[in-house]
């Protein structure tokens, strides 16, 4: 039963990873951009929510109503000022420019807020630690349940948006062939702007849950980026449901690692990520060889 509880907690943790990873996955799927400043944007949103809660007593749920549009606007600016220009320089330039942007954002946050560790948990009272006890060994945190629900709603909503709406279809078309969508009347620059705005608005939601379930400081972005990255790679770049599964697999690997050895949390996650990465590199050629041998056997 303790084992079952560990897996359950891993799933909840994984849902959080899926939430922080979905906009990374979305942005890569649409614009082939790996946004290394992603973690920093999550932390920016967390600090904005913290200020709203701390100074103005606005609970994070309400704070999001203000912070999501602000972050979306920041996303648009990011696209126009940084990504659009960087994309013209090839694959490496967006990596370098977003990496640089992450350093700038982290240090601006440090200038503004100092090195103190903050949390949004005090702003939601009991909910931060309330839980349902299912048996002696199995408990479910209510906040964890909300995070799992939020991950499913956000990823499902994003999937539905891409499949069923005018803008969603325009984004998919632009992702496939940015150079020719003009021929059917789509303004590719505007589509990129909307897509980045959506991605950074999603980072705001991730920032809320970062602050609610844990603590953060100006330099927390790097770790969030790392976990998000691992979730996306495990699930397959550009696939949204894959990102949910990747996040959950990562979360379960980490909690099981910690179950085996108290120091095993991070190493189990990273180890699993590396295993998947290596499998991705070596398994497809191997499978292809086996298929070919199979065909030869049939032909003979």
């Amino acid at each position, binding site marked *: 039963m303790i084992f079952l509880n560990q897996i359950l907690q891993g799933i909840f943790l994984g849902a959080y990873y899926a939430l922080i990873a979905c906009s990374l996955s979305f942005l890569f799927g649409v614009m082939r951009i790996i946004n290394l400043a992603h973690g920093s944007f999550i932390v920016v949103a967390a600090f904005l929510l913290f200020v709203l809660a701390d100074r103005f007593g606005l609970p994070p749920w309400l704070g999001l109503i203000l912070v999501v549009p602000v972050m979306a606007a920041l996303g648009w600016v990011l696209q126009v000022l940084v990504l659009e220009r960087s994309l013209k320089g090839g694959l490496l330039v967006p990596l370098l420019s977003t990496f640089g942007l992450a350093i700038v954002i982290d240090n601006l946050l440090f200038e503004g807020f100092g090195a103190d560790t903050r949390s949004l948990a005090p702003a939601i009272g009991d909910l931060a630690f309330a839980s349902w006890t299912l048996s002696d060994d199995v408990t479910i945190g209510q906040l964890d349940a909300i995070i799992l629900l939020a991950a499913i709603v956000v990823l499902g909503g994003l999937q539905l948006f891409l499949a069923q709406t*005018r803008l969603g*279809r*325009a984004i*998919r*078309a632009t992702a*496939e*062939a940015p150079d*020719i*969508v*003009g*021929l*059917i*009347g*789509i*303004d*590719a620059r505007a589509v990129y702007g909307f897509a980045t705005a959506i991605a950074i608005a999603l980072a705001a939601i991730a920032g809320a849950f970062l602050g609610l379930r844990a603590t953060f400081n100006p330099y927390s972005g790097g770790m969030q980026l790392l976990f998000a990255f691992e979730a996306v790679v495990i699930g397959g770049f550009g696939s949204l449901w894959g990102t949910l599964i990747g996040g959950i697999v990562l979360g379960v690997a980490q909690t099981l690692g910690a179950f085996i050895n108290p120091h095993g949390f991070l190493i189990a996650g990273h180890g699993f990520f590396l295993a998947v990465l290596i499998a991705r590199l070596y398994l497809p050629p191997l499978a292809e060889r086996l298929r070919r041998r199979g065909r030869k056997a049939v032909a003979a």
Partner: protein
Amino acid sequence: MTQTGPILAATGLGKRFGALVVLEDVDFTVGIGEAVGIVGPNGAGKTTLLNVLSGRYAPEAGRITFRGADVTALDVAARCRLGIARSHQIPRPFGGMTVFENLLVAAAAGAGARGRMAEQRVLETLALCGLLGLANRRGETLGLLDRKRLELARALATEPALLLLDEIGAGLTDGEARGLVEIIGAIRERGIAIVWIEHIVHVLVQVVGRLVCMDAGRVIADGEPAAVLRNAAVIDAYLGSATHAPAHG
């Protein structure tokens, strides 16, 4: 906009790539609902002319009006929304989207169509282009002929008043090309003006009522197809490069 004037009028178009002059002082008009064919040897500037008309390239000289309004400064997307659509020689479907979605995204962005209306228009266009049976197939799974049909259908879904076609028959067998000619004829009957570049002249003249011949960036003949094909300058520039009539590009 005047009812009788041309739908598209280009005057004095000039375009160069570095030192290479690709278009020089080209005048070109298309009447409402008219179908015009463009022929000429490789490198004559035909595709560049189409790219300047569609807005992909800005001309260094000249002016383009569409339905009486100056569109010279507008980009491809803006001109498409006004009613100028273009298909490419090498079809580029949105491979991960279904055939239906390929048209739906075009109808939404190019024609501003919404909801049921958009879906209805898309179904009509699919039927016209013989793609109804493939509506739920992904673009990347189609063969060349169906890709060409999709390229044409996607351009049509933007509800153009003027359709620019770039060698849509290239790479097809005679039988396949005949099928496309029927579709293009039906498009013409709907009152959509067509400008069509094609090396396969005998296919082209089945649809167009007027032929323009280009050579070295200039228009060297313009008029009724049979007359243009008899023109000495055309024979010299175009047919003279081959020993026989250019049945295939």
